[in-house]
């Protein structure tokens, strides 16, 4: 009896490892290890022509070893906080605009006859079939004649355009699962069209809103191509700074530090959103 239970727990533990092992290894290789490399890189000195200076035994006159100088620079100058704030502002605006634009589209698809839904979803993701940069350059041609290029407005237009499908898809996936009988019941019990939406459809779609928002907000934060093509010098975001550190000034440690700060900020926001979503799901 005793032996029996112990083997069962042992085999249970083995199964558990087999199930959770691969994702764990995956996380280590693709998240923890790179993060660790970045942490180390952010406290080293830049090499002469990019890359990193050696940790030990540098030549005389060359910096080597460990330094927290980058963090000093980051926290010592308001400009970085400002760029972070600007980036979060653009990401937030993009997310909200995407939400407002995607919701009616997702609702329309979810309430269309089943046989048309797949086609409509396909149409939403069809732009992905052409090159991302080509599509962004297309906006230069569209916005140019109206003298709207190289502005914050142009950046947000580009961001919204590129990320809209990432909002539509999770919203549609959520809305499509709603039981239509609930809307009948609401109407039957006296709810007009607005109340049917606001009291039934909207609260039930909160999980979709949260996942769509995460899928838009986070990539927008790191985006550098769109501000570079459509924005002015004033519209540089964190992504541009990071890219410039690696490819322009070739200061890898500084770029690593910026990336880490961005990751930390995103994680903080994701944790907040997850917490909110969990409350939303618990209620739904």
């Amino acid at each position: 009896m005793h032996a029996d239970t112990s083997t069962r727990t042992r085999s249970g533990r083995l199964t558990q490892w087999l199930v959770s092992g691969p994702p764990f290894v995956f996380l280590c290789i693709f998240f923890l290890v790179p993060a660790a490399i970045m942490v180390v890189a952010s406290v080293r000195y830049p090499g002469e022509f990019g890359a990193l200076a050696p940790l030990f035994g540098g030549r005389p006159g060359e910096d080597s070893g460990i330094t927290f100088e980058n963090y000093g620079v980051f926290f010592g100058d308001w400009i970085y906080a400002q760029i972070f704030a600007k980036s979060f502002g653009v990401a937030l605006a993009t997310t909200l605009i995407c939400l407002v634009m995607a919701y009616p589209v997702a609702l329309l698809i979810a309430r269309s006859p089943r046989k048309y839904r797949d086609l409509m979803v396909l149409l939403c993701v069809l732009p992905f079939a052409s090159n991302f940069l080509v599509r962004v350059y297309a906006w230069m041609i569209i916005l140019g004649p109206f003298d709207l290029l190289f502005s914050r407005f142009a950046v947000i237009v580009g961001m919204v355009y590129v990320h809209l499908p990432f909002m539509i898809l999770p919203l549609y996936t959520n809305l499509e699962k709603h039981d239509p009988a609930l809307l009948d019941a609401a109407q039957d019990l006296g709810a007009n069209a607005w109340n049917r939406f606001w009291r039934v459809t909207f609260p039930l779609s909160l999980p979709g809103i949260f996942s769509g928002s995460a899928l838009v907000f986070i990539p927008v934060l790191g985006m550098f191509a769109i501000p570079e093509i459509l924005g002015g010098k004033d519209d540089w975001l964190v992504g541009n700074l990071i890219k410039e550190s690696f490819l322009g000034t070739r200061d890898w440690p500084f770029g690593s530090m910026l990336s880490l700060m961005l990751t930390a900020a995103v994680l903080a926001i994701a944790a907040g959103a997850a917490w909110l979503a969990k409350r939303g799901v618990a209620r739904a």
Partner: protein
Amino acid sequence: MALLEIKNVSRRFGDFTAVDDVSFTVESGEFFTLLGPSGCGKTTLLRMIAGFDLPDSGAIVLDGVDLRDTPAEQRPIHTVFQSYALFPHMTVAQNIAFPLRMAGKADDEVRTRVREAVAQVKLDKLEQRYPHELSGGQKQRVALARGLVNRPRLLLLDEPLGALDAKLREQMQIELIRLQRGVGVTFVFVTHSQAEALALSHRIAVMNHGVIEQMDEPDKLYGFPKNRFVADFIGNVNMHEATVAATGGTLTLELGTLGRIAAPSREGVKAGTGGVFVIRPEQVSIRAAAEASPDPNQFEGVVNDFLYIGDVTTYIVDLPDGKRFEALLPNSAPGRAKFFEVGDHVRLSWKAEAGAFLDA
């Protein structure tokens, strides 16, 4: 004036007629049932009364007002759906409060009315639960409370007990009657279970293929079915082809090679008319073939099979012409669960007043 009048209502889907020229009225305070087999148009009719669908022709009138231009949310009619359709993101209390909130009732009133409704359907202590934390019977009660709380003129119930198991179903039937008498709200109830319809209703409309076959009180429907469909659909019945041989104080029927029987007379039936003779199994007496019976109608037969149900035993008897009749024998004496064995010769008999001749 009748509360609800259904006047010549038809609804077609393409060239299929789901509801075909249906008319009836429901009185205030009545428990009215639409009974019929699957696909006969019950839900279609109910959806038109609720306002989710409009008749192609005919009128639905509530309190003397034609409802054609009144959208569902403005009709003082609430529905209990078969799937319950409880709002999954709201607690029991919030679900029940929903119609009150939509009607713009003040918070105080909402609170007291919800508390009353919760007590009425015995859901105390469960107010803060979410629907996924409830059993089927409890969900059913929430749906009922939600439908009744704003005191609609009419409550529509579309097979509300369909998803419950037999025992719970019976219990809910009793509660449903109690609730309906208590609140005095008019019920229009849909079911395909004849037993449920008989047990619950003041009046029943039997539907088939989109038309109402017969509309009557339960005992009349069971005792005096108008046609073969109703006789067969409500309860069990023995049927035999018959021709009217003579009319008068009682009908004389020719049951093929079986011979003649006496049956209750019916207006407008002439000699020579063909039809069926129907009689309920509990009206047929069964005794040993050797025993004499005082009844005018009697035939000898052989027990083909029997079903011991507990309270009664149903005997299936082969008649001399090869037709089968069923006869019920109550098991009232302990230890005498069955009287006859398969192969026993028995005598079936019934009174001249029992059964009916149907030519439709």
